[in-house]
């Protein structure tokens, strides 16, 4: 009885979480263009998706920005984390507090603040400003993911390496970096997810020339969404699902990875 | 010792088809200090958890003062537990940890204060009431756990390896303190441990378990001096276990000689195991003075005594003696009849309850 109640409750919660997603998937096969009306099965939105220049361009910008922002903020953040870790107490906590600002501030404040900066110093809003903005809000998360690993690191390990004749740069590359790799990877994953999903900060820093998927969907949602967006979201959702299922199957550490 | 407090009848529990406790029977009397002793996975903790109500038995009965207890949840049993790693509530201070059970019972603040203070005094933690439990040492946490259980005035206290996390010196101190407490509050303790020395020091009765089966129930002296089988002999202290033949009542044959003994009731020529404790073998510098002759093959100084291995051609005997015989010297060995413990051969056979 109690078990049944639990199952029903979880079922309802999952229904709530998945209903909109299932609906999008169903719509992606719906030949009727209007929402809420079933006009028969079709794959034409998928075909249209391949032809749609606007969507393809937005997808391109989303991915290229996410990849670049991830690479840059991961390298930048890892080095900064090592530096911050080795600072004295006061500068360290000051740096960390500033670093936390983009994490704790509402996205909209970070967004308008960056927009204000770019316009005030006459940087044209576009690809570069958006990339910089993404690096600004991704790097703090990389630092937050790497720092705990540095704290776990044996303090003497770098000293031991140098005692054995390694130069500091060699010790960094061959001893410290390999030890904190799990933190770097999870930092990179967080950065990539945040960047690819970001709307608010992109919205304020992209200007009119560049559009990513989120911005495209936002502008469409107000006017009416092309059904090929449903097709795209179906493809994206299934990709993510398959990836996660594979990870989960491969290791029981799925839980850890996701968190 | 008083009347029967708790009885286990054919108690059985298995996990995923593996039997953890196999149809055990046991009676525990009031004010008794009973120790469940055995290696890890022998079923001792499972037995304790069934008594506490944390596991449901698959089969069998638990009777508490003659009343069936099986279906009562833990919070309805007049039994309290001291958990393995104490399980103190980290969000409550020392006072509130101890007061927890009383608060549940909705006692008045005044009564709670008096009882908790008395209890803290008893476990030597006066003035610690406002302390955070995480700030206490292992030994202090241990005392809080005991106070938290005892303040409810249970008829039975279950202790699951309560000293396992402490270092050796503290453990020895706590053993004596626990014994004192048990004597002064006069309630029954069921104590689980894998440490045979601890069991021998503290218990009125030891229950030796292995593979979910009770091997032997008896006083520490019984268990040490008269183990009923090879497992018990081996688990309790060091011993020489020798395959032998029972010629007739009071006579047993091994290593080429017949020995007098005090056991009877075996079939003629029945194969048996003989246990001789290392300290029960007497050494003679003249080999002819001993019934068995051998050569010393190793000597280790153990503080009070020397531990020597002596080879008689059939086996190596372990011998404890305060006099050192150098390696290579020939010695004679003798054993008193009372020190020869004859056991049935079949290994790990469950014993019947006395």
């Amino acid at each position: 009885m109690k078990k049944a109640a639990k199952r029903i409750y979880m079922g309802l919660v999952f229904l709530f979480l998945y209903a909109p997603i299932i609906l999008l998937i169903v719509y992606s096969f719906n030949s009727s263009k209007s929402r809420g009306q079933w006009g028969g099965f079709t794959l034409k939105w998928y075909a249209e998706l391949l032809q749609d220049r606007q969507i393809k361009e937005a997808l391109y910008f989303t991915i290229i920005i996410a990849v670049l922002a991830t690479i840059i903020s991961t390298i930048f953040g890892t080095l900064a984390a090592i530096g911050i870790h080795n600072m004295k107490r006061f500068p360290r906590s000051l740096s960390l507090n500033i670093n936390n600002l983009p994490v704790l501030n509402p996205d909209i404040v970070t967004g308008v603040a960056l927009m204000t900066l770019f316009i005030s110093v006459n940087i044209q809003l576009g690809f570069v400003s958006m990339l910089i903005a993404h690096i600004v809000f991704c790097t703090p998360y990389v630092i937050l993911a790497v720092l705990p690993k540095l704290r776990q690191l044996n303090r003497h390990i770098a000293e031991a390496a140098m005692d054995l004749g390694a130069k500091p740069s060699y010790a960094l590359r061959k001893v410290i970096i390999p030890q904190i790799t799990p933190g770097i990877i999870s930092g990179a994953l967080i950065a990539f997810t945040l960047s690819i999903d970001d709307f608010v900060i992109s919205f304020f820093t992209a200007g009119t020339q560049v559009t990513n998927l989120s911005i495209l969907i936002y502008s469409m949602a107000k006017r009416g969404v092309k059904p090929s967006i449903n097709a795209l979201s179906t493809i994206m959702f299934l990709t993510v699902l398959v990836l996660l299922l594979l990870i989960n199957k491969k290791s029981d550490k799925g839980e850890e990875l996701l968190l | 010792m008083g009347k029967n407090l708790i009885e286990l009848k054919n108690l059985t529990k298995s996990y995923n088809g593996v039997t953890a406790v196999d149809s055990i029977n046991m009676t525990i009397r009031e004010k008794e200090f009973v120790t469940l002793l055995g290696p890890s996975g022998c079923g001792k903790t499972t037995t304790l958890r069934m008594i506490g109500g944390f596991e449901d038995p698959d089969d069998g009965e638990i009777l508490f003062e003659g009343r069936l207890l099986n279906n009562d949840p833990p919070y309805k049993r007049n039994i309290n537990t001291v958990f393995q790693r104490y399980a103190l509530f980290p969000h409550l201070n020392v006072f509130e940890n101890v007061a927890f059970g009383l608060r549940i019972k909705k006692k008045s603040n005044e009564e709670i204060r008096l009882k908790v203070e008395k209890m803290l005094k008893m476990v030597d933690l006066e003035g610690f009431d406002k302390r955070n439990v995480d700030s206490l040492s292992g030994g202090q946490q241990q005392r809080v756990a005991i106070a938290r259980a005892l303040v409810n005035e249970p008829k039975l206290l279950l202790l699951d390896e309560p000293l396992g996390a402490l270092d050796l010196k503290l453990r020895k101190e706590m053993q004596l303190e626990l014994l004192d407490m048990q004597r002064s509050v006069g309630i029954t303790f069921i104590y689980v441990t894998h440490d045979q020395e601890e069991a021998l020091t503290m218990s009125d009765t030891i229950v030796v378990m292995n593979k979910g089966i009770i091997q032997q129930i008896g006083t520490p002296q019984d268990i040490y001096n008269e183990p009923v089988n090879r497992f018990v002999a081996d688990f309790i202290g060091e011993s020489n276990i020798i395959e032998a033949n029972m010629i007739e009542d009071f006579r047993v044959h091994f290593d080429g000689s017949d020995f007098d003994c005090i056991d009877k009731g075996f079939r003629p020529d029945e194969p048996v195991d003989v246990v001789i404790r290392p300290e029960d073998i007497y050494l003679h510098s003249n080999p002819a003075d001993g019934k068995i002759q051998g050569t010393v093959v190793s000597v280790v100084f153990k503080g009070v005594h020397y531990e020597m291995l002596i080879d008689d051609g059939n086996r190596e005997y372990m011998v404890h003696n305060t006099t050192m015989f150098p390696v290579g010297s020939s010695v004679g060995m003798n054993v008193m009849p009372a020190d020869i413990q004859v056991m049935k051969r079949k290994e790990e056979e469950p014993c019947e309850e006395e």
Partner: protein
Amino acid sequence: MRRRMKLLAYPYSAWMMIFIIFPLLLVLLYSLTSGDIHDFSSLQFSLQSYKRVAEPIFLKVIGNSFALAIISTIFCFIIGYPVAMIIARANPRHRGKLLMFIIVPMWMNFLLRTYAWMAILSPNGVLNRFLNVIGLQPLEIMPGEIAVLLGMVYNFLPFMILPIYTVLVKIDRNLLEAAGDLGANKVMTFFRVEFPLSIPGVVSGITMVFMPAVSTFVISGLLGGGKTPLIGDLIEQQFMSDRNWHFGSSLSIILMIMILISMAVMSRMDRNDEKERKPV
């Protein structure tokens, strides 16, 4: 060694000054001035935009934002706590899977999910068609506050579930058994032991839901249809269409300050809880 490693942080320190501190100072500057934003020499100190924030219609917007954010946080807590508890108590083999199914929707683009709710809730959307089929009156919740609330709860629910789960799953089962052993039944054990121990998770869950909820402009823009503008909508308008950066900046500063205050209150609650247990 330490001294040399420290150098690695300097580029980032400079970066933080330029892209984190300086932009916020700019916002602060604009909020305290009036004049042409493109001509720094024309800027003059003025509290005018803050005075404007205090006008009743804008105070109402701020009030609405907080009310909606608080209500959606409460709903997330009421719905999310039991979910976290059920997953934490589930068989460890299934936990990973259950958790994954909570997280998967978050991997779907946030705007797509909100757009999907538009399709469900709009006047001739799926919900109303369904109600029509079973012979009920259609609901007029979108555009409106209820739809905004629903969108908030939907989007932020996992942020409530995950931190609570993380704390609950780490609670030593022995503690719950100990409470039972001391006479507490399941309900008492929950309220006296399990819930108090999960408070740190609840606090971070509340923060993680409240923050994005109070500052959102997407959800209110798409599901609220401008009927109940929130502070986020107002800020977006000032920067994107009205081009009144001074007013937008003071709204941003006010939003920041209020969020900082509520976070300080929350962390105080968390710390108080801890302090009680610390020795003096």
